[in-house]
């Protein structure tokens, strides 16, 4: 028996430009730096950690902040393999999937840490901070822990700022979320320092209270990312990279297509696939017809709007104006 002829028509992806290729490589390098530096910070914190709940929570937060860069690198490799007989629509969504995975991890660990901190508070477990010998002097271990936390503030601040710039250039939402998490890192370190300083003042609850605050921030990050990941997985209306508003590109595409002399009206339905936007352009033509030359012209006009516009399907708008609306707009998740 001969195998049936392959009736699958694979997507022909629009290659990304050299500037974006370069930015992606820089992002990958930045992710490797993140893994190295944050890994070193994690080891430093583990080595100096006493019985402080706040410091443990800050440490877990730092370990968690390794997840997004690892996820980004994995997605980058997977995406590079491109279209094949199985992945007939390409692999642009690799970023969305790793984003979902890290959001789930962040949410779960955040909830666990909140519970853990509250448990310490409720059971009135007193934090145990011993002493260390440096040179020939015995000093309170809290000083070493505070120093380690202070050092741990530095790399995330720098990495976060660099990532933010690249995330805007590439319109990469996972990278933007990663930068946000790096920004949160130094705040958790400060909260940890406050907790340990509180132990030194004999306030045993200050430590666990700080831990709960940090864990709350982790949980908040996780839930926000999870909601955004769910949104992206549903091909929801595209958003700006910082999620502050609707993405202006679909409207820009509609305007560009409507400028075609034979097009009377144009509506669009685009969705995000990783960094790119793909979707359908519905046109109402002067004579109600749409031939292949015009289809090509409209697609080229749409793609000329921005490098992020990938696959564009052109269709005749069957019933212009007649659109049954069953629900309002779900407001964009801010910040």
């Amino acid at each position, binding site marked *: 028996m001969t195998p049936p002829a392959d009736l699958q028509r694979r997507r022909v992806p629009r290659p990304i430009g050299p500037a974006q290729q370069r930015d992606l490589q820089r992002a990958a390098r930045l992710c490797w730096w993140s893994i190295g530096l944050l890994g070193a910070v994690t080891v430093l914190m583990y080595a100096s950690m006493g019985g402080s709940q706040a410091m443990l929570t800050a440490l877990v937060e730092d370990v968690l902040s390794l997840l997004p860069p690892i996820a980004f690198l994995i997605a980058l490799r997977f995406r590079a393999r491109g279209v094949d007989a199985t992945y007939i629509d390409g692999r642009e969504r690799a970023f969305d999937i790793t984003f979902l995975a890290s959001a789930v991890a962040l949410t779960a660990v955040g909830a666990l840490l909140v519970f853990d901190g509250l448990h310490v508070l409720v059971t009135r477990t007193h934090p*145990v901070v011993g*002493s260390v010998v440096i040179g020939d002097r015995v000093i309170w271990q809290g000083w070493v822990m505070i120093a380690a936390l202070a050092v741990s503030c530095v790399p995330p601040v720098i990495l976060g700022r660099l990532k933010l710039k690249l995330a805007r250039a590439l319109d990469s939402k996972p990278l933007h979320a990663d930068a946000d998490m790096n920004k949160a890192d130094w705040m958790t370190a400060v909260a940890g320092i406050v907790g340990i300083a509180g*132990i030194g003042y004999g306030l*045993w609850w200050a430590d666990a209270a700080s831990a709960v605050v940090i864990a709350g921030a982790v949980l908040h990050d996780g839930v926000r990312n999870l909601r955004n990941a769910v949104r992206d997985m549903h091909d929801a209306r595209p958003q700006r990279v910082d999620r502050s508003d609707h993405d202006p590109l679909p409207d820009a595409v509609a305007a560009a297509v409507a400028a075609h002399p034979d097009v009377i009206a144009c509506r669009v339905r685009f969705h995000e696939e990783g960094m790119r936007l793909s979707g359908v352009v519905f046109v109402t033509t002067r004579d109600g017809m749409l031939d292949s030359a015009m289809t090509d012209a409209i697609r080229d006009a749409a793609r000329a709007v921005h490098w992020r516009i990938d696959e564009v399907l052109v269709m005749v708008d069957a019933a212009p104006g007649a659109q049954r609306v069953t629900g309002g707009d779900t407001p964009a998740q801010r910040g």
Partner: protein
Amino acid sequence: MSRLPLLLLYLCLAACAPYPRDAHDSSERAREAFRVGLSHDPPHVIASDARPRGNEVELIEALAADRELRVEWVVGNHDALMQALLDHRLHLVAGGHTDASPWRDVSWSRTYRLPDARGRPANRRLALPPGENAWQLSVDRFLHERTAPQ
């Protein structure tokens, strides 16, 4: 809003006091009575006689002499002693604590070495109340001076 600078000023003044401090004033209360929990662990702690003996008991007596504290020995079963330590009713529990002791939530002194029954050095620790930073530092400093290799 005007309270914030006042609060910061207060914190700065508070910072001038000794730091780190105890959560439950162990250092202060030890001046009235230095309460030491003992469980029988020869040759380090011999609690069967009327007066406790052993090389760990001698170490604690030296600590009391150095800090000018009056020792009050509390001999009891180990679980009760550790619970009393967690409740901050004792300042220290000695006897049977190696550096692999499975007790959690209590604090541990620095590890020191004392000769065991065969005269070989054994790693020993004292159990301390949790969250008593100044008291812990005081005991650890004594142990470091006393048992550090010369």
